[in-house]
Every structure is written in structure tokens, then in C-alpha cells.
């Protein structure tokens, strides 16, 4: 006996609330009644995502996908689909009115088109070059060496419309072309794998899952711009990615896909790894180059741009991991193919690390122009515990927030900039009603202040001042003048800082003031933090019923503000309390509450 059909029903929390458990039992009953119990297995799965279409039932191996199923539909699904083998058309997923019905085989066709950067991640063994080769690996390199001129390569990139995925979104072909035009005895190709944004790990996953795609792309660039050496600058905090890169480089050299006279041609290209050492500013290209040179990673003014004077003063072409990973696909399938994906100004796909208060956190690759709503609710499965969406943060410490009113804005470079955030490297952090905007902005400012290299005054001093004003606001010591000061300093930093880090450090402040000024004012005028994150604006009290008089809190209180002896209910003296929260941490009985 073996089952020949499997009915998958979502057992995720969101679907369970919409009766999927009841339907699971109904399915089993109907299958039993129809004498199918030896042929059909009903299986509960993890969350499918796509919860707005839930509950969802998927039937394998037919790959039929039913949405918005109710308990009343179960009988029909079993009778029609399982007994008679006919699809219940009215329940099948329809992507949009004009496109009609889509079978999942067709849908998978789309999916494969859109997994460009992550095309091999989770598919091939990253430590086996043969598996990469099996998936068209090094086909693009072969093509550029034997069939294309440097101008052909750059032209293909130009047609594709690929823009840098690391931050500002500079057209990739232009970078390559500028470096190509320089005359020099030595040029360099550099991969920026110093992924320092907190909450972003797209590049790490790409390098861990598909290291050869980056090596191949760098060699292609070497051929295009006339460089024979490449460096990958990677965070020391990514040991697995480093190991996989080392293995990949070794294997590629053994096969002669890197090194002298690649594939018997006159083109030679070699790649070395250089480790970062935990400095966020080294994600900035001029700082990164100084770090490869073995010095402190301090940015230098541009111009001269790295394409003119880069590594050891030689013309250098720098791109980040995700940008590189796109290149072999563009060469293989053509720039015109690539340019069909995405929006007018932003071509291709974007990989996001979806994290925070989201059910299905993870790594996703979507076409440019996908909306935040699709990402959060369809792919991400919505907010944890069905809380209310407050904002999503994109672009890390250099970015801003996307509030609820822009959930349906297609995400691309220009739209994000227009609403005051930025694409950045692709961290997408979802915040719910329990998150305090002032607290989150403080978190980012703390980060940029720590990471400022200190070379230029606007960033070094401005950041510190912003942080101290934010501290005042969250402590209830600010006035409305504080907001004016925040704005003035932010603008000054943006205009006068030397590098990208300082210029964008105030973005979290500016963007949140734009959409959440009320929340700042609530802290300033109301001395209140609705989300309950700013400790100084809270009162700490001990619940008499829960306190057993263990004295743990009193012993930890640095201000001796807790009165009480052993086995007696303790009380907090509000006039002495400094609101450090140590008592909450110390109490093992949840007797200390803040509010």
C-alpha cells in the first residue's frame, strides 16, 4: 500500500484561526467515507505564507492550489478532485482577473525567471564546482573570453539596466566603463562583501550558497575592463562564507577557470580574499580600499573615484556581492531579457532579508516593483500574533521607514528615495505596534556614532549630538525645540559629511520625523511612550499578589528605592526610582511591572 495523492493543508497559526483544523478533520472524514484512506494522505504543513488567501489547500502530485477554502468546500474537493479527478475551478488560485487561471507549473516558470541572484542557493552543493558548472556555470565566462569584446560586455550590461545593489544604485555598466577607459599597467576588480548592515545577510547567504557566481562575475569584469587581479573583501564575522569562497577559488584554479591563460586563452585573472575586521565604514568604497591596503578604514574624498585612483592608486572597479551575482545571468540570457524584469528605472530583482516582527522571516528574491504588502503579507505570512503593522525599515542605518500608507507602493530605487528611505543592501525589518520609533532611531544612531571613523566633523560631532537629543526625548527631558535641532543637524550632516556613512546617518531621524512626528511629540509633551520601550517614561510597580518577598529586586536596585524585608511584599519608592529596570530583570515571579 502506498499513497498516491497528498493533500497539504496549512497548519500555520494564521490559517488555524480560520478553521484549518476543522477542515483537516473534515478532510480525513470525507476521505475515510469515500474509501480513499489508503490512497490519500492529509498532511498539515507549516505556514504557506500568502495568508490573505488562506486557508490554503495544495494537492500533490497534481500541484493544484486551492485558496480561501471553507469547511463547506471540503466535500466538493474530495468528491470532485480526489474521487473524480476533476479540478474545482472556482477555488483555484487566480492571480488577477485578466490573466485567468494559472497552474502551478506555469507559476513555477515565473519563479525560475525571478530567482536570478539566488538561482543556485539551496539547489547546488556550494563546495562542488561541478554542480555549478551543471547549472550553466562558467558559461558566461566562456562566452566573454571567446565571443565578446570588452565593449560588447559593457554594452550588454548597459542594455540590462543593472544598478548597484549595495546602496546608491549607480548604473553598473558606467562603473565598468569608467574603469575600462583608464590607461594603467595594473587595474583591479573588487568585491565588496563587507555586509555590515544590522539585519542584512543576503550577501552572506549568496556567498555561502553559490560562491562561484561571484568569482565568475569578477573574472568577466576583469576581461571587460582589462584587469588581471581581483580581491574579495569580506567580513571576518562570516567564517563559513570565507571557507566556501576559499574552496571555490581553489577548485576554479585547479580547473583553470581562474589563474593564467583561462581555458587556454590569453586572458589571465586571479582572485584573493582579504578579511575585514568589524568596521561598518569599510562598506564605503574608499574606506574599503584603504582597509585592503592594510590601513585604518578611513574614507577619502571623491573625486578621484576608485575607477581612476583606487586600490594602490590604480583604477579599480568595485561592486557588491548581489550585483556581481546578477552578471553571469545577464551575459547568458542577454541584457534585453534582464531589462524586461522590474520597473522603468530599476531592472531585475532584489533580494531582501525579511526580519523583525514577521511570521516567515527569511531570504526572498522578488522582482523590482513588488509592493511591501505582497512581501509582508503574501510571502512573509503577516505580522507575528496578528499585531498591527507600524512600519518597515529598509536600508539599515542609512535608510528610513516605510509607513503603512505606502504598503502598496512598488518598491524600486526611485520610489524608496521619494518616500525618504533607500534600497540599501536589502535588510527589511518589520516593526509592529509594540515598537517605539524613538527607540529604534536611537538604536540606529548609536550604531552610526559607534561606527563613525571620526575623520570629518559633521559626522563625528553631528551624530553624537543627534543621539544626545534622542536620549533627552526618550528620557522626557526635551522640548519642541529639540525637534527643530534634530532637523537642523540632520540637514547639516547630510550636506557636509565626507562619505556615505555620515551623509546618510541622519536618514532614520529625518524619515521618522516625516511620518511619526506625533510619536516624538507624545514623548516630549505627553512624557509618554505608548509602545512601552522608553524606560524613563514608565513607572515601575510591584504587584502585591505576585511578590513573595524574596528581596532579589531590592538587592539589585542601585538607588535603594525598593522597600521591604524578607517574605514581605516590596514597594518601589517612586521618588527614588531611577527607572533602570534592574528590578524587572531581577524578579523571577513577574511581580514587577512597567507601564
Amino acid at each position, binding site marked *: 500500500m502506498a*499513497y498516491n495523492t*497528498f493533500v*497539504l493543508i496549512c*497548519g500555520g497559526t494564521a490559517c488555524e484561526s480560520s478553521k484549518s483544523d476543522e477542515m483537516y478533520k473534515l478532510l480525513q472524514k470525507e476521505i475515510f467515507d469515500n474509501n480513499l484512506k489508503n490512497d490519500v*494522505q492529509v498532511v*498539515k*504543513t*507549516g505556514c*504557506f*505564507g*500568502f495568508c490573505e488567501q488562506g486557508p*490554503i489547500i*495544495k494537492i*500533490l502530485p497534481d500541484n493544484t*492550489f486551492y485558496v480561501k477554502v471553507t469547511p463547506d468546500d471540503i466535500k466538493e474537493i474530495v468528491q470532485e478532485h480526489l474521487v473524480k479527478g476533476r479540478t474545482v475551478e472556482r477555488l483555484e488560485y487566480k*492571480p488577477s482577473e485578466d490573466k485567468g487561471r494559472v497552474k502551478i507549473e506555469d*507559476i*513555477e516558470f*515565473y519563479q525560475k525567471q525571478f530567482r536570478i541572484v*539566488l538561482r543556485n*542557493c*539551496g*539547489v*547546488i*552543493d*556550494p563546495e562542488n564546482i*561541478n*554542480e555549478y*558548472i*551543471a*547549472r*550553466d556555470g*562558467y*558559461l558566461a565566462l566562456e562566452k566573454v573570453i*571567446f565571443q565578446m569584446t570588452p565593449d560588447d560586455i559593457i554594452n550588454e550590461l548597459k542594455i540590462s539596466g543593472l544598478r548597484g545593489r549595495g546602496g546608491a544604485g549607480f548604473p553598473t555598466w558606467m562603473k565598468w566603463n569608467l574603469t575600462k577607459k583608464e590607461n594603467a599597467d595594473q587595474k583591479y576588480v573588487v568585491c565588496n562583501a563587507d555586509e555590515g548592515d544590522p539585519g542584512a545577510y543576503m550577501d*552572506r*547567504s549568496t556567498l*555561502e*550558497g553559490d560562491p562561484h557566481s561571484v568569482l565568475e562575475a569578477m573574472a568577466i569584469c576583469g576581461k571587460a575592463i582589462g584587469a588581471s587581479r581581483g580581491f574579495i573583501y569580506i567580513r571576518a564575522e562570516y567564517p*563559513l562564507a570565507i571557507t566556501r569562497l576559499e574552496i571555490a577559488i581553489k577548485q576554479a584554479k*585547479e*580547473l*583553470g*577557470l581562474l589563474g593564467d591563460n583561462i*581555458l587556454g*586563452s590569453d586572458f589571465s585573472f586571479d582572485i584573493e580574499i582579504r578579511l575585514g575586521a568589524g568596521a561598518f565604514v569599510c562598506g564605503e568604497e574608499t574606506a574599503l580600499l584603504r582597509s585592503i591596503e592594510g590601513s585604518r578604514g578611513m574614507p577619502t574624498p571623491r573625486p578621484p573615484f576608485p575607477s581612476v585612483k583606487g586600490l594602490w592608486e590604480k583604477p579599480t572597479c568595485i561592486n557588491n556581492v548581489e550585483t556581481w551575482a546578477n552578471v553571469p545571468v545577464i551575459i547568458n540570457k542577454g541584457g534585453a531579457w534582464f531589462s524586461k524584469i*522590474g520597473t522603468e528605472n530599476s531592472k531585475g530583482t532584489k533580494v531582501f532579508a525579511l*526580519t523583525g516582527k514577521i*511570521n*516567515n*522571516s*527569511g*531570504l*526572498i528574491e*522578488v*522582482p523590482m*516593483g513588488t509592493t511591501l504588502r*505582497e512581501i509582508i503579507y*503574501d*510571502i512573509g505570512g503577516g505580522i507575528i500574533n496578528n499585531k498591527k503593522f507600524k512600519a518597515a525599515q529598509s536600508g539599515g542605518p542609512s535608510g528610513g521607514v516605510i509607513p503603512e500608507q505606502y504598503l502598496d507602493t512598488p518598491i524600486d530605487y526611485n520610489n524608496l528615495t521619494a518616500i525618504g528611505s533607500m534600497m540599501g543592501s536589502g535588510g527589511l525589518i518589520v516593526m509592529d505596534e509594540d515598537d517605539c520609533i524613538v527607540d529604534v532611531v536611537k538604536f540606529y544612531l548609536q550604531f552610526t556614532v559607534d561606527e563613525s571613523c571620526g575623520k570629518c566633523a559633521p559626522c563625528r560631532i553631528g551624530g553624537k549630538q543627534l543621539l544626545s537629543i534622542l536620549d533627552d526625548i526618550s528620557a522626557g527631558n526635551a522640548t519642541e525645540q529639540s525637534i527643530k535641532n534634530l532637523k537642523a543637524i540632520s540637514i547639516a550632516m547630510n550636506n557636509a559629511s565626507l562619505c556615505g556613512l555620515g551623509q546618510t546617518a541622519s536618514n532614520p531621524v529625518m524619515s521618522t520625523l516625516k511620518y511619526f512626528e506625533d510619536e516624538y511629540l507624545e514623548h516630549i509633551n505627553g512624557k509618554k511612550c505608548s509602545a512601552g520601550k522608553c524606560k524613563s517614561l514608565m513607572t515601575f510597580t510591584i504587584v502585591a499578589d505576585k511578590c513573595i518577598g524574596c528581596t532579589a529586586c531590592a538587592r539589585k536596585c542601585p538607588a535603594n528605592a525598593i522597600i521591604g524585608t524578607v517574605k514581605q511584599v516590596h514597594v518601589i519608592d517612586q521618588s527614588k526610582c531611577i527607572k533602570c529596570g534592574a528590578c524587572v530583570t531581577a524578579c523571577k515571579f513577574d511581580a514587577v511591572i512597567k507601564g
Partner: protein
Amino acid sequence: MSKLTLDDLRKLREEKTQEFSRRNNEQDKSSIIIGMGTCGIAAGAKETLNAFIEALDTNGLTNVKVKQTGCMGSCNVEPTVEVVIPGMPTVVYGNVDGTVAKKIVLKHIIGKELLDDHIQDKPAMDIIEN
């Protein structure tokens, strides 16, 4: 291995592509593919890997290959494992610890049944269009 010429590379690619597509489509080879990115390993993918090897060994299943791959992207349910068995739909299981790994071997591979509560399927990833 010696260095490749252009012809060598083309031959190698053809050979490997055939091997690879055979693995994916005809499923004549059974395999367990474990996501071994940093997330996966942090969540215990190495123990999962060992549990699979042990359980396959105990049950004398010498024809099932255990392989590693990079991150499958479902960070909230790591470790993730793709199970490819002839005659069964290919599925990705999430939250696969040692105990679940054993269950997969007994139930999915030997018993030809799917496991409850661990299948991860993300139709929206396929559906969102340009």
C-alpha cells in the same frame, strides 16, 4: 585535476548537466539535501545531518544520498531539508532536528508518507509576478 580547455569545459558541463537534471526530474536517485548556511548550522543542521546518516545506516538505506546546499531562505524554520524520493512529491521540511530526521527516514522514506507539521511550501514566492 588538470586545467580545462574550452572543449573540456563544454564536455564537463554537458555531462554534469545531465547528471544534475537526472537527479531533479527522474528522481532515480534518492537524496536528502540539507540547507547548510550559517542560519541552518546555527539552528543545528550538523546534528540533523548526523541523525540522517545514522538513521539511514541503521535502516540499511544505502541508496539514499545525503548532500549539503546553501541557505534555502526559510530562516524561521531552520534547519531545512529537501527530500527527494522516487514516487513521492519532493518536499522541503522545516524545523528538522535529530528526532524529526529519524521520523523522515522512517515515515517518508520507508513508509512513503508525508510528515505532519513540518512541510514548508511558499506558493507566494512562485506567484508574485512582474
